[in-house]
């Protein structure tokens, strides 16, 4: 229907008011693209961090631990699809920090990971997370002049990769956010302030509470550790709570190392001491497993579960092994592990989508009312079209197509705006965190002055409408200039709330596409009723009078 295309194109280019609908649709799409992209990016970051923090699959048996875990590791090493596995002891403890008022010291509750750094580095991003290391030329290029990492030097730093486990001076690695003296700067790097508070120069005391394989708590035990280094996983909750020590050291403090096993029935031997009936095996609470790249986590999980069954059977058949591993440890993919974190965000994102659909209804209403007025105004033209043989369907299509084009333009403009904002969201956020620069105030003020001049011109010419429009613009720009001059900076993305130190900045194209389709559909729906009214126009009535 050539005439319908011709007319709807012509209406599109000759009328300004419907462009308001385009603007509404565009802003709506931009809003959804920004919010949903940030939320999806946030979820992606959670997922990625999950993998770099704990590999693909986690086998754990909290507190009591998994005895004979070394055998399980051997079986895992032979399992297809598993590339690495690392034993960990997860527990909680208290660290007496090297700072605080004289005579007293600060005690921080921390999450303690007893790790084997070498295998942990194979499973997770442990090596990359170590913060203080002698920078290579590549990294140097990206560092600020006064980044302390340029100078960072301590004999201890490399101990992060050994933790001096079973050595004379056991070492600890702290999350970078634990020390309140680590100041985070705008470029994301940390500066110890004062420099003397640089953690790798200090020692700490760690207290842990051992729990026997039977689940009984015994006396807390203390150990002295050198701080070898700090790590940054980029997940705030981890960086602000977790410390790493050697696995053997953790086992020693928690009495989870290999040792004599006494008769649990309390029978005494000839010397009147508890009767030793064998060896209590070393235990680890958690095994982190990394699978082949690209294999689905669920598939890796299945293979790990099979491996665990083999391990169980092997230990059961071993008469020497008096302590048996748990039959049903938690075997979870990282996704399942982070379920508590991920699920609410996913729900929120869906909720957002629903809420924004309501805004779509508003923009559909806008299209509807604008089109309604236009169809009313154009009813004579519709009569003419009918008189020269246009069908009702053709008339309907003129307005539907117009609404469609408005929706499509709005959707793409919105995608453009949204993508621009999402791409630069961190820069925008940083800029908002600063007082507004002088030039922005000057520009806004100059624009306000120009609008004022236009107001005066309109007043002189006696145009009420232009005068009103320009005076409103003057007031608006004046408010913007005033607001900018008073703006002192605001931080909306607080890493302690959102886990990550940067706002995700990748457009979620799939959901952006959905929202664009939604925008087009709602524009069409808004246009449909006026279009149907147009098709219903009685040509005789429409043509009767001038």
């Amino acid at each position, binding site marked *: 229907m050539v*005439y319908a295309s011709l007319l709807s194109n012509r209406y599109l280019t000759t009328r300004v008011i419907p462009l308001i609908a385009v603007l509404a649709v565009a802003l709506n799409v931009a809003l959804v693209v920004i919010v949903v992209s940030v939320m999806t990016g946030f979820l992606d970051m959670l997922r990625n961090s999950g993998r770099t923090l704990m590999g693909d699959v986690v086998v754990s048996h909290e507190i009591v631990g998994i005895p004979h875990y070394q055998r399980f590791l051997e079986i895992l090493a032979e399992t297809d699809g598993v590339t690495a596995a690392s034993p960990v002891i997860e527990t909680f403890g208290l660290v007496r920090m090297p700072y605080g008022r004289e005579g007293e010291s600060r005690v921080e509750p921390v999450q303690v990971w007893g790790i084997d750094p070498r295998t942990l580095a194979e499973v997770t991003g442990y090596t990359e997370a170590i913060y203080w290391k002698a920078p290579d030329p590549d990294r140097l290029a990206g560092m600020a002049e006064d980044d302390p990492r340029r100078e960072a030097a301590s004999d201890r730093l490399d101990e992060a990769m050994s933790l001096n486990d079973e050595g004379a001076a056991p070492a600890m690695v702290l999350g970078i956010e634990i020390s309140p003296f680590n100041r985070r700067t705008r470029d994301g790097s940390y500066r110890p302030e004062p420099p003397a508070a640089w953690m790798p120069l200090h020692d700490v005391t760690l207290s842990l509470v051992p729990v026997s394989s039977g689940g009984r708590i015994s006396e807390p035990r203390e150990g002295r550790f050198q701080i070898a280094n700090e790590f940054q996983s980029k997940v705030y909750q981890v960086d602000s709570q977790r410390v790493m020590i050697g696995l053997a050291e953790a086992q020693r403090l928690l009495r989870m190392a290999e040792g004599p096993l006494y008769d649990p029935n309390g029978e005494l031997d000839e010397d009147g001491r508890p009767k030793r009936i064998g060896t209590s095996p070393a235990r680890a609470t958690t095994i982190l497993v990394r699978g082949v790249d690209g294999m689905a986590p669920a598939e890796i999980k299945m293979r790990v579960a099979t491996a665990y069954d083999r391990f169980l059977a092997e230990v059961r058949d071993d008469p020497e092994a008096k302590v048996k591993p748990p039959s049903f440890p938690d075997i979870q993919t990282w996704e399942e592990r982070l379920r508590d974190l991920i699920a609410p965000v996913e729900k929120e994102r869906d909720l957002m989508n629903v809420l924004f659909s309501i805004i779509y209804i508003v923009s559909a209403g806008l299209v509807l009312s604008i089109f309604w007025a236009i169809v009313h105004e154009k009813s004579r*033209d519709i009569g003419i079209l009918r008189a020269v043989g246009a069908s009702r369907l053709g008339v309907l299509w003129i307005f539907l197509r117009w609404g469609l084009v408005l929706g499509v333009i709005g959707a793409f403009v919105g995608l453009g705006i949204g993508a621009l904002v999402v791409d630069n969201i961190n820069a925008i956020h940083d800029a908002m965190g600063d007082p507004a620069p002088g030039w922005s105030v000057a520009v806004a003020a100059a624009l306000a002055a120009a609008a004022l001049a236009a107001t005066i011109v309109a007043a002189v010419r006696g145009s009420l409408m232009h005068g009103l429009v320009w005076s409103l613009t003057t007031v608006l720009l004046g408010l913007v200039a005033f607001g900018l001059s008073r703006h002192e900076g605001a931080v909306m993305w607080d890493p302690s709330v959102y886990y990550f130190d940067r706002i995700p900045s990748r457009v979620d194209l799939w959901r952006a596409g959905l929202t664009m389709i939604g925008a087009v559909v709602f524009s069409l729906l808004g246009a449909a009723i006026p279009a149907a009214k147009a098709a219903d126009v009685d040509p005789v009535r429409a043509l009767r009078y001038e």
Partner: protein
Amino acid sequence: MSDGSRTPPLLEAVEVRKTYQLGATEVPVLHGASLEVRGGEWLSVMGSSGSGKSTLLHILGGLDRADRGRGEVRFEGASIARFGNRDLDRYRNRTVGFVFQFYHLLPELSVLENAMLPGLVGRVPFAWRQERSALMSQASDLLERFGLAHRLRHRPRELSGGERQRVAIARALMNRPRVLLADEPTGNLDSRTGGEILDLLAEEHRRGLGIVMVTHDASIAERADRTLWLRDGRVVEDS
């Protein structure tokens, strides 16, 4: 009325009735109006204001439907009341051409596009590319003939009344209809301009176009082959 010829007239109204419903009251406008237009014949229809001339013209052109019942409009012997929507649209597009007192051009389209409009109706974009230039030259030939060669790209509002009416006639003739239905085509023009428009219609009539022209003005009606009167909802011949 019939002069003995056996071929059916080109267009005829037979006992057409039209009643408007105004709330509960019925307003009968036409009750048994009959007329015949032979091929290439020019008819004038006169009558007092409100006598139903425009209504009759709209019914003849398939824009309005007559009351159901005995009366009907036939084109070449076929009742247009039996046409479906599609055929009726096509009838308005191809068979008849409307000219109105107030020109009724589309303000967003140029003169050329206005004249081409009936040519665009019924065309699908796929075949459009090949037909486009043929239609454009056909429309511009018509406009040229009407002395509007220099106005093709103008908007209707930039034209005088007489020029606008010529564009409207070009539009009505675009698809080479058999009958032109003109409702007071000179009613809004001064007599000199109106005369020019009538000359133009006379020229088309000479080329074989059938015309039904509604007018209030007896001197204008004279230009037609025959003049009919609409009185009390019926057509009476004035001879």
